[in-house]
């Protein structure tokens, strides 16, 4: 269970988060939507402690995330970064098994490589990419390697920052199914950021919309279409006219 209350974050004079109240239940798949630059990525980074919030509380299972023992806290999480953030000095399989090769409970190189291959297969990548370097992959392939790395250690909580951008529709479908499968089969908690409404419908139990620094709307994915929030309606139908300005 992740609970945020009153989370604020500003960069200089720019107020990005202005009091986020949000909770994610264990085993739930939450999708966060919102305009480009609205602070979705910053929100995930605040939860992980990569960005220090200016105010507010973030609790993980009732315990303050900022005070938790860092290693134990982070071991519960997996994160796919928006830009992939692969280590370009390491090969693909070493990237995927980075956590498995280090720290407590580390695997042998052979076992870690096997696990990396299995995860790569799950994101639709064959064994021929395993020994390439990230710079030798296409953007979409890098994204999928990042996804494989996020799920490699089978964490309890996984954050996906735009998992399907840059992928073809078929591969996007594979990834949507994968994320849904991780939640339903493995009981993981997932928070996904996406702009793709097909993904939202495929992945989400609940949807939260971030707008002007607050959670503007939150509810079950099925209730999204009936909701009478004009911002949400403009967003899901992709209209240029409406309460959300198109110049931001």
């Amino acid at each position, binding site marked *: 269970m992740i609970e945020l209350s009153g989370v604020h974050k500003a960069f200089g004079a720019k107020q990005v988060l202005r009091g986020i109240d949000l909770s994610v239940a264990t085993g739930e798949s939450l999708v966060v939507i919102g305009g480009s630059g609205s602070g979705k990525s910053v929100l995930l980074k605040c939860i992980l402690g990569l960005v220090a919030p200016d105010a507010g509380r973030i609790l993980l299972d009732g315990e303050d995330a900022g005070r938790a023992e860092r290693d134990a806290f982070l071991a519960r999480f997996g994160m796919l970064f*928006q830009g992939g953030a692969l280590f370009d000095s390491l090969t693909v399989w070493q990237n995927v098994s980075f956590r498995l090769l280090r720290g407590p409970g580390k695997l042998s190189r052979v076992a870690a490589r096997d696990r990396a291959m299995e995860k790569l297969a799950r994101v639709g990548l064959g064994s021929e990419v395993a020994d390439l370097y990230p710079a030798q992959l296409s953007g979409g392939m890098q994204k999928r390697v990042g996804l494989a790395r996020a799920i490699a250690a089978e964490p309890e909580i996984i954050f996906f920052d735009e998992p399907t951008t840059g992928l073809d529709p078929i591969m996007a479908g594979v990834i949507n199914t994968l994320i849904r499968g991780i939640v339903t089969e493995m009981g993981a908690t997932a928070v996904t950021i996406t702009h793709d409404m097909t993904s939202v419908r495929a992945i989400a139990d609940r949807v939260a919309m971030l707008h002007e620094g607050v959670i503007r709307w939150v509810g079950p994915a099925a209730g999204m279409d009936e909701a009478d929030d004009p911002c949400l309606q403009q967003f899901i139908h992709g209209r240029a006219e409406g309460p959300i300005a198109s110049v931001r």
Partner: protein
Amino acid sequence: MIRVLATTGRGTRGALASVGAVVRFAAAVLGHLFRPPFYMGEFARQLLAIGWQSLPVVGLTAIFTGGALALQIYAGGARFNAEAVVPSIVAIGITRELGPVMAGLMVAARVASSIAAEIGTMKVTEQIDALVTLSTDPMKYLAVPRVLAATLAVPALVAVGDALGILGGWLVGITRLGFDETVYLRNTADFLETWDILSGLIKGAVFGFLVALMGCWHGLCSAGGAQGVGRATKAAVVSAAVLILAANYLLTELFFRA
């Protein structure tokens, strides 16, 4: 006038704050040296990149510097009929001063820049954030292996540089200045003291530490895309070079105060 004072004051305060931050960073790196986990693979890779791959450039600069030094000392010595001091002064000049300083500056150019560019790129492409989320401390995984490798590698480079610098002086001495091959070498060996060499190696260790520290610090501080990485690289090289020369003066005062 008041505005000038205020600006100067702000500038000074900013400079002092960043000096404080760098000192804290150095202390943190030193603290991590003795606490696990240790990334031996990374350390070995850095030792190779910083030490082994700097050998050609350090060796070449040492040979040329030794040769030029021999010519200058000969010309200077000739003014009071003291040409015979060439072997001993070349040896002292190389081992105490030019060996460590030249090696330090060449490593600053090669290594401070590449460390800053690599870590800076990792910073702006979120790779540092990714490291953290994978429960790996960037200080331990990136900074400590580099700083340790540079601190150990530069003295070794200085030792090689000393030998090649003296060789450069010897080559010029016997081919251009009419010295006898064995007499030149005997002069060098008789005159040189252990402390001449040791003090240079200690300087080398300090310079290596400073180079890697500046590379890591500016790399980790970089922000703002490719331009930010460029700025960090430049700042790393400049600050490493200035710190090397300042530290060299202080160490010389400390070691050889009259």
